[in-house]
Structures are given as structure tokens and as C-alpha cells.
């Protein structure tokens, strides 16, 4: 994404439009919207150079609240629509707002293929582990056993972990945030925009109506320092109320939480986060923390790797071809056809 000449420094207000916001009071989506306004101001992209594209779901209503170009599509297809928009005009800053159902149920295929192609779009995945707009069915991220309208006796299927799927599709950027921590969410959105290629930002979002408190265990102010860890590239992986704990690795390549000064662990044992290694093994283990073990859930930029983007490679190929076969008019093209003949 190239940013056009910026006329003046923007403020979050420049990205808001007048429409009344229609999410339920207390819904985590409000926070995500605000953070996006802030992130865009920080990035200082012209509102007319932004396209926000969505599918269907509560989360997918977001484009209506932006003073940018926006397209509210059909369920699950935002990543594909956004691919078309970005390839057509690589100068646009293209965002996708989507839900866990929208992007991982019906839209799963476009999600993994956009990631594989590494189109430079920024996907914000509102993960509330529920279908909000259709009033409370389980989603592909709902825990096994989850009771909902469509699973009155509990689900019998394993959920996806969006990070795992992203890496399985060879993702180059993955980050995670919680809806209640505005600063870090804003930072993460900024980082995702700066990444060239498909970035996936998973926001653990609360649906007050149909799945209230689903992330509370980790997002509650009280438990947050113990239950989450903010990863920062180049920094030690520390957490805890006083950053007294850290993530270390054992000989079997298993991660574990250690307390500095206890059991003989020192700061040196704590890993330094490198988001940029091509090999995703460690990123994956970090992203899995807290899901099948009791390590803190990783937030922040977990993976941010450089790789060619689809639209750039495509443009480059066009340029190369045009160098070899200089553009002419359609008529000239036909007239230079090898198979042409003349009737006189």
C-alpha cells in the first residue's frame, strides 16, 4: 500500500462518519471501531484512499461507521472481494472486518487463500466465539461442549484456533488483541497496516448479548497480567503484575512459564520475541499458549514476516510482459497477428 501525498495530519474524527452506531451498548465492537479510527489517524492515510470491506455479521457492519469507501458484501466473501479491490488498485489501503463465523465458517476458503496469496489486505477478525447477528448459534471457534441455540446439548466438535489456520495457510502476519485494551489494539492495527501482505488481527471480542464474558477469564483487569502476555518484537517475553514471569523453552521445545528468581530461573532463561523468523514453529507455539495449556495467552504481533505480495508480483509480471510486448491499440494487436490473412 502506497500512501498518497498527505495534505495534513489527520485525527480519528476524520475517519468517523455521522451515522448512528447500531451495535448493542457494551458490545466489544465499539472499541474496535474506535481503535481503527485511531490507528488510521496514526497512519495518516487519506480517508478516500481507504476501502473497508466486510461480509455479514455484527462485525461486518463496521464499514458503515467509517468515513471511507466501504463495501458491505455477502456472508463470508469479504476476503475475496477485497482481493479484487486491492489487485485492481494497489494504492488503496484495504481492510476487511469480519467475524469468526464470517471468516472461518462460510468464508474459510477465501480466508486461507487470501493468506496463501499474501494479498496486502488487513483482516480484523472479531472473535466473539458466537454468531451474533443471527442471535446466538455456536461458531467454529466455540469451545467443544458449548451450549447455544443450535447446540442445545453442547457442541461435539473441536474449534479452530485462528492462528493455527493462518499459519497452516502460510500466513505472514498474525496478531492478537483484546477489545478492552485499546492502546495495544490500536498499536496492533497500526502494525498490521504496515505489514505488506495479508495480516490477520484476531480480536477477542465480547458479545454482551449472546456470549457475555466468554473472554472474561483472560480479559478481566484482575487476571489479565497473569493470563495474557504482550509479545513485542526484540523484547523479552515477560508477564505478570510486575513482569516477574517469563516464557522459557525446555529441551523438548516445550514452552513453559517461569518466575524469575525461582527454581533457578533468571532473566536469561526468558525468550526474546522475534516476530520475523520465516520458520513459524515458535510463532505457532506462542499462538497456542493458553489454549491447551495454562500459559498466558499471547497478545500483540506474534508473526510479521516479509514476503512478496500478490498484487505487487502481479503488477511486476504485467510490467515485464509489457516490456517485451509493448502495449498497442487493440486494432494494432490484431493486425500484428501471425495468423492473419488478407482478402482483396
Amino acid at each position, binding site marked *: 500500500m502506497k500512501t498518497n501525498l498527505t495534505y495534513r495530519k489527520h485525527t480519528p474524527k476524520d475517519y468517523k462518519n455521522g451515522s448512528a452506531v447500531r451495535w448493542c451498548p457494551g458490545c466489544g465492537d465499539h472499541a474496535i471501531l474506535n481503535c481503527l479510527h485511531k490507528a488510521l489517524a496514526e497512519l495518516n492515510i487519506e480517508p478516500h484512499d481507504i476501502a473497508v470491506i466486510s461480509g455479514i455479521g455484527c462485525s461486518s457492519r463496521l464499514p458503515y461507521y467509517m468515513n471511507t469507501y466501504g463495501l458491505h*458484501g455477502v456472508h463470508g466473501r469479504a476476503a475475496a472481494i477485497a482481493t479484487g479491490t486491492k489487485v485492481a488498485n494497489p494504492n488503496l489501503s484495504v481492510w476487511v472486518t469480519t467475524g469468526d463465523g464470517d471468516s472461518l465458517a462460510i468464508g474459510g476458503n477465501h480466508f486461507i487463500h487470501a493468506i496463501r496469496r499474501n494479498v496486502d489486505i488487513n483482516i480484523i477478525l472479531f472473535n466473539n466465539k458466537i454468531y451474533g447477528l443471527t442471535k446466538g448459534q455456536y461458531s467454529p471457534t466455540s469451545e467443544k461442549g458449548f451450549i447455544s441455540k443450535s447446540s442445545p446439548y453442547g457442541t461435539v466438535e473441536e474449534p479452530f484456533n485462528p492462528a493455527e489456520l493462518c499459519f497452516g495457510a502460510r500466513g505472514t502476519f498474525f496478531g492478537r488483541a483484546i477489545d478492552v485494551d485499546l492502546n495495544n489494539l490500536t498499536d496492533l492495527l497500526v502494525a498490521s497496516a504496515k505489514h505488506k501482505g495479508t495480516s490477520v488481527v484476531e480480536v477477542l471480542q465480547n458479545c454482551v448479548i449472546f456470549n457475555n464474558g466468554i473472554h472474561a477469564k483472560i480479559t478481566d483487569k484482575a487476571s489479565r497480567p497473569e493470563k495474557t502476555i504482550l509479545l513485542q518484537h526484540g523484547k523479552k517475553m515477560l508477564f505478570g503484575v510486575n513482569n516477574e514471569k517469563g516464557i522459557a523453552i525446555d529441551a523438548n521445545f516445550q514452552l513453559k512459564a517461569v518466575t524469575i528468581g525461582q527454581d533457578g530461573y533468571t532473566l536469561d532463561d526468558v525468550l526474546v520475541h522475534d516476530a520475523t523468523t520465516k520458520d513459524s514453529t515458535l510463532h505457532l507455539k506462542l499462538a497456542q499458549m493458553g489454549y491447551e495449556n495454562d500459559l498466558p495467552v499471547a497478545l500483540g504481533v506474534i508473526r510479521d514476516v516479509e514476503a512478496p505480495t500478490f498484487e505487487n508480483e502481479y503488477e511486476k509480471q504485467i510490467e515485464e510482459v509489457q516490456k517485451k510486448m509493448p502495449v498497442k491499440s*487493440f486494432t494494432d494487436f490484431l493486425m500484428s497477428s501471425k495468423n*492473419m490473412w488478407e482478402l482483396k
Partner: protein
Amino acid sequence: MTDNTIVNELKDVTIRFSGDSGDGMQLSGTLFSTLSAILGNEIATFPDYPAEIRAPKGTLQGVSGFQVRIGSHDVYNAGDKTDVLVAMNPAALKVNAENLKKHSIVIYDSDSFQKKDLEKAGFKTDNPFQELNLNSVQAIPVAITSLTKSALEDMGVDNKIMLRSKNMFALGIVCWLFNRPADIAERLLKEKFGKKPLIFQANIKAFLAGYDYGNNTHLTASTYRIETVKHEKGFYIDVNGNLATAYGLIAAAEKAGLRLFLGSYPITPASDILHELAKRKDFGVKALQMEDEIAGICTAIGASFAGHLAATSTSGPGLALKSEALNLAVMLELPLVVIDVQRAGPSTGMPTKSEQTDLNMALYGRNGESPLAVIAAFSPTDCFDAAFWASKLAVEHMTPVALLTNGYIANGSSAWKIPNMDDYPTIVPPYVQKHFDGDPSTWKPYLRDEKTLARYWAIPGTPGYMHRIGGLEKDYYTGNISTDPDNHRLMVKTRQEKIDKIADFIPKQEVWGDKNADTLIVGWGGSYGHLLEAAKKIRKAGKKVAFTQFKFIAPLPKNTEEILRTYKKIIVAEENNGQFASYLQGKFGNLPLHRFNRITGQPFSIEELVTEFIQIIDRKTIDNENKSYVSKTYA
């Protein structure tokens, strides 16, 4: 030996090259049709592939045919029955037996008419011609395989290359038979194989060996020359319908000053549109092969939103998958060309066969009242014009347009005169900046142009026109989401009117034939050539008849009802169960319709058309009921 064979002048001849998929019959056929076109003949071709990539050798399923019709003029289709059949094996003979004219010539490779070959093709005796009741055809055995081998013996090429050159030997014979000068064939082969000298040499040698063999042995008592009448002067190339469709899009993009974008997914028989546009990076075309048909149309929608001329190409099953997203495009009111190269259905059906059964789906296959424009191409070369028109209407009227072609015209080819693009109309996108005095403040995203009811196109990247669109119903004035009942009613009406108004911008429907005929033959799309020829033959038979073929299906040309009400009988002929007939009847009511429906996966048989139409013309009663799908053979 001096040439003392008799040369007959012919108006029109149909030749079919037929053999195993691996026998290279498609190439023999293509070369023969191209060189005939170069000589000034009219041509039409009909490649008839098997569904399998490679069915077992020598079996009926593996037969691949390429039919060429050449003539002095009025070659509107690739012909019904063949005058000359080249049969590389017994299966090819069997498959084509039904379509041989009574006194046709069959040139066959006697090397591959051995016992085991006959068995593979399911013959029970060693006389396949008798077994097939082909008693009056002129059967000419030629040891094509061994003659080719001996012609190439001294070249030191391997057996594979030798066998692969058989098709050129056969082509040589046919070129001799029709008095085609050998040098044009040589030129064409050079263009084709110029980069592979060994293959080129082998092909040329085999070709000349076949040519000389015909000449030297006086293979047939007479050879033929096809009359050439004066043609429109100009430069020509050979195009099939898919290529012409791709070219039509490129030409329209150029006229509109837009970049062309295609989002697609491969599917028979539409893939060649994707292939051609993927090549055309010299024009800056962006042709994306996506993960599925839905992503194909969705990327096109995204690209259209971003200001490209966007298209998506597919065949029936793919269009079914696209229907939800196509409906979104209807709501978004963005330009989009959706190409459906119809094939035989339902479901996977017969992918390599052709029919006209997707009209209903194009018109109606979406939830809600979802009107869009529908255009159907007449012939391989008309695909160019149809694609151009589809693009023009899409852009100027801000709507998806469905372009229906079919397998028959998509793979069939004709000589196409390179057009003078100045003869084509301009295409003017309704850019929003040109209206409202360039001042966004009074503009709303769904305000409309009065004449077309098209909304204005505000393209991301344009300062001042930021806006949001989507699939939810929106307010007529503000464009905001609305569930107001009266507003919904108005919007449903407006979307329909926008499409109806296109009738103001398309040519009037024309009628061919007798002014005072009682009977009108009506067709649409790719059956044009067959119906026109049938109509001509009916007139020759002394009956009065009129004929009209529809290219613009939705909306219909303005004078449609007027035309239809002029006749006492209307025969609607379709390769489906009467979809267009029902569409007309449903719209106008009280039309004296006869439905002629044939669904066989094959193009119409002109002979059958003529016989049946004359019967209907002579009949006293009107029969709106749709009984004609009853199969004669089995019913």
C-alpha cells in the same frame, strides 16, 4: 502422371476429421478450416471432444471429431451431415455413421481397421460398412499409418513422432481432394511448428506424402473446388467464440478507457476465456484464477468497485454457484459482465456438449426480485460484438449483464474480419466527478441519471466521494440502509425500470424473410446459423416464412411485442424445454406459440428443422403446450 481427375465445383461442403483423442484430428481440422478461409471461403467449425481426457484407445468414448464446413457463402453453421469423413479407426466410423450423407466419401485408415480394432469398437463382423448399413457411401481405404511411416522412414525420427504425423497425411489427402494449394498449408505448419524443426519437417513430409498420394493414385474419381465469391475486402483471422469473447472485453475496456479485470475459475467449455485473458498482460489485463467460482465473481465485484471493467467467466454449474454474489452486484449497482458458456446440464451433465438451458437461471436464478440484463451471442464471431455490448451496457447502466454463449459457438470458429474500431460506439462510464458540478456535497451514492436510472460511479481513491454500499436494501434518496415498506417497493421498481430502460439504448429487433408470412420462426443466441439456414431452405421449398433471432433477451428490444403480434403462428425453437417461449408467453400472453425443443447436447439438425417447421406451417392448429420434448426415438 498427369492430372486427369475431374474437378467439380461445389457451393458448400462439410468434412469431418475423426479419430482417437490422440490422433490429432483437432489440428487437421483447424488447419483445413484456416487455409480454406485464407482462400476466401466462408468457414464454420464444430469440434466435438470426448468427455474423457484419454479414453481407452479405439473405443467409442475416445472418439474426437472436428467438423469443418466450408462454402462460397452463407455458411452460418458447421453443417449437419458430412460429405467427407476421415475415419482414423473403426470407432470413428461408427460414431459418425448416422451423420453421413447418403453418397458421402469415407477415407479410412485401413491399417487400423484390423480385427482387434473392429472388436474394440464393438463390431461383430469384419465388414463395418455393411454392419452399419452404409451401402451407398464411397469407402476409400488408405493405409495411412504405414504410408506415413514409410514417408518418414529416412528422417530418423522415433515411432511416436511418426504416429503423430498421421493426421498430416490425412490432411494432405483432403487438401488434394479439395484442390487446396499445398503452399498455404506449409506456411501454416511453419507458424505452428516453426520452433521445433524436427516436428515441423515430419509434419510437412507427411502432409506432402498424403497430398501426393491422393494425386498419384487418383484416389477418387473427381476432386472438388469450392466456389469463392467476392468477399468483403480486409484482413481476417480465425477466431472461436471464446477468443472472440475475450477480444470483445478487451476492445470494450479500450473504448471505455478502463482496465480489464477477470475473476474466474476453470470450467469446460469456458476456460479458454481465462486462458486468453491471462495471456493478455500486454494489455495490462488482470485475469485471476481464483480458488472457486464464488471468489471469481467476488474479486470481479471488488475490482469493479475499484473502477475496473470487471468480468467473470464460467459455465452452468459455476453460474449456479455465483448466484448469491451476482445478486449482490445487482444490489450494489456496479458494472459486471458475467459470461456463461452454456453446456449440457443439469448438474455436471455432459460438460463437452452444448445446449441453451441456462436462460432461466440467468433471468431468475437469484433470491428476491433481481433484474439484470441478459444478452446472447449468435455465432463464434458474434461473441465479439455480444461481449462488447455486454460491457457497454454494464458500464453505462451500472448493472451486471449476463452474456450467454454456449459450447458450440465457444469452440466453433469462423473467419473474422478485423473490425475497424471506429465503427464501434463509445463507452462512457458515468463517473460521479462529472456530475454535481464536481461538488460532492449534494451527491448521494444512489442518486441516478434520469435517462438510464444508473447511479453514478464514485471510485475509491477519489477525494470527496467516500461512501458505503452493500447488499441491504437502501433508501431511495440517501442510500442509507432502510426497511421502510414503501421505499422497498420503490427500490424494487427502480431496479427493474433501470433494466427496462436499457431498451432505449439497444437496436430494434429485425426480421428476415417474407413480409407477408403467416409464420415467424423465433430463436435466440447460438442457434442463429442453424435457424437462418433452415428458414432459407423453407423459403426455397416454396413456403413463406419469417425469422428473427434475439440477442437482447432482457430487456427485449422495444418492438418485440409489435413483431410477435404480426404473425399467426410463432415457432420458438430452442435447445431446451421452451424457456424463451415461456418467457415471451409469460410476458405478453396470448401468443400463438409452437415450441420446438431439442435437447441432445448437439446443435440442431437443419434437416430436422426444415421438416418439422414445414409441418407446423402447414398445420391448422396452434399448440402452446410444451409437448415437443418427447423423444421420437424412445417415446
